[in-house]
């Protein structure tokens, strides 16, 4: 059966070893971001890595497990959102299989599509568990933003419509930058390395600079909007 074969292909030994490392990356970068008090999550970079290198099924599994383990052992408020994490991995994986991770801007598009999916999937969860409060979303989101010094209502408004795409596009770009920094010899070990045959080579430093520039531009945009709203 085609689907079962497609699922099986995602998983070789490298996949199984990568997944725990990817989940740990999710957790640790998610925590660094809190320590740096940045208005993003960046807690799905590992999931996207697995999705791109191994496939959508592996990505979905990584997201789910990542969320479950985080929820059980770090912050239970994360638990109800496991379908969101699942779809992040799933959609990123399919985008990559469709060739949408072979260059900068394609990876950014992937990030945007993932963000849309995340917003879509989190709505019913928001409705059922938290009673459909579109304003507050979840305490998770609000807690982060309060930490970055935003005032409550504007913070919540900005969140749902800007931070998600911002977060997921940054995640995608960072994942792209990471993959760029790995040798093709290493990447060839993973089941779907064809997803990352890069078109045109760029040096690692250039990528870091470009990622920084994109993030700064988006940050400026967000801050401008925030200032406008609070007046």
């Amino acid at each position, binding site marked *: 059966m085609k689907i079962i074969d497609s699922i099986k292909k995602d998983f070789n030994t490298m996949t199984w*070893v990568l997944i*725990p490392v990817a989940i740990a990356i999710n957790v640790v970068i998610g925590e660094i971001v809190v320590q*740096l008090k940045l208005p993003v999550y960046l807690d799905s970079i590992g999931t996207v890595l697995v999705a791109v290198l191994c496939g959508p099924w592996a990505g979905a599994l990584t997201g789910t*497990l990542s969320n479950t383990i985080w929820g059980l052992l770090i912050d239970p408020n994360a638990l109800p959102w496991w379908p969101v994490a699942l779809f992040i991995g799933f959609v990123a994986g399919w985008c990559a299989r469709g060739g949408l991770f072979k260059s900068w801007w394609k990876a950014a598009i992937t990030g945007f599509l993932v963000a849309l999916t995340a917003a879509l999937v989190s709505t019913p969860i928001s409705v059922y568990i938290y009673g459909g409060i579109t304003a507050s979303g979840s305490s998770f989101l609000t807690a982060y933003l309060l930490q970055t010094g935003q005032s409550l209502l504007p913070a919540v408004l900005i969140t749902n419509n800007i931070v998600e795409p911002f977060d997921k596009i940054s995640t995608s770009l960072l994942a792209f930058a990471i993959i760029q920094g790995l040798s093709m010899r290493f990447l060839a070990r993973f089941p779907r390395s064809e997803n990352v045959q890069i078109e045109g080579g760029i040096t690692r430093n250039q990528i*870091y600079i470009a990622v920084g520039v994109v993030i700064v531009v988006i940050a400026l945009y967000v801050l401008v909007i925030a200032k406008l709203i609070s007046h």
Partner: protein
Amino acid sequence: MHERLSFYLKRDSLLHSLNPLTKLTLAFGLTFVAFLSPWYWTPQFVVLIIIIPLSILGRIQREYIFTALRLILPATAFLFVMQALFQPIGKTIIFQFWFLHITRESLSFAFANASRIFAMISSFTLFLLTTHPSELMSDLTRRGLPSQFAYVIISTIQIIPQMQSKAQTIIAAQRSRGLETEGSIFKRIGALVPLVGPLVFGSLVEVEERAIAIEARGFTSTRKKTSLREIRDTGFDKTLRSILVLMVLVIIVLKIRAS
């Protein structure tokens, strides 16, 4: 933000000697009951009349209460406040601040919601305090969970603390080289890459060798795997699980009839 990564406490108790799947079923069962039962005071009942006595039975009452007060209560209290303020239901306004208001209905809803979440987290805490991960994985593998899953889950649980301390080392090292992690948002964003880079690359290159190492230990062997540990599954366990499933079904029926 993170507490220690494994909740398990080794004690000699009735709960500890139960089969891990039974305890997991218990956690899910209590959660479903708390969420689906039509009676308003169910979550409180579950926590006070079921969970706390069970924690005494499991000799972990002190740790449970501690976790409940330090972790669960603040998390759910926050949720309670958010819900009370933002739920747009009800007309009887009790409290008004600026444009935010709390109605009697939203208060009631928020309380119910928060209680349910409290009950859910409590029942899983009970589970985590009395079940060792490797025990659970051995049992699930015996019942058909592919062994690769057991590997992934336990590996993840053990690797996360390793990576967390690696991250702290890298942060300290980069700071001592002049990296600024406080100040303007731009500085903080700029700090992200020098921190994330070494951590991620260091961990990823190890993946190949680790894959070779587990292959050398027969990880992909197609033979039927055996298990060193033997996890007991008594008649009592099986009965208890059946009762729990039945209980949930009854609650579902009650809920359907009540609506």
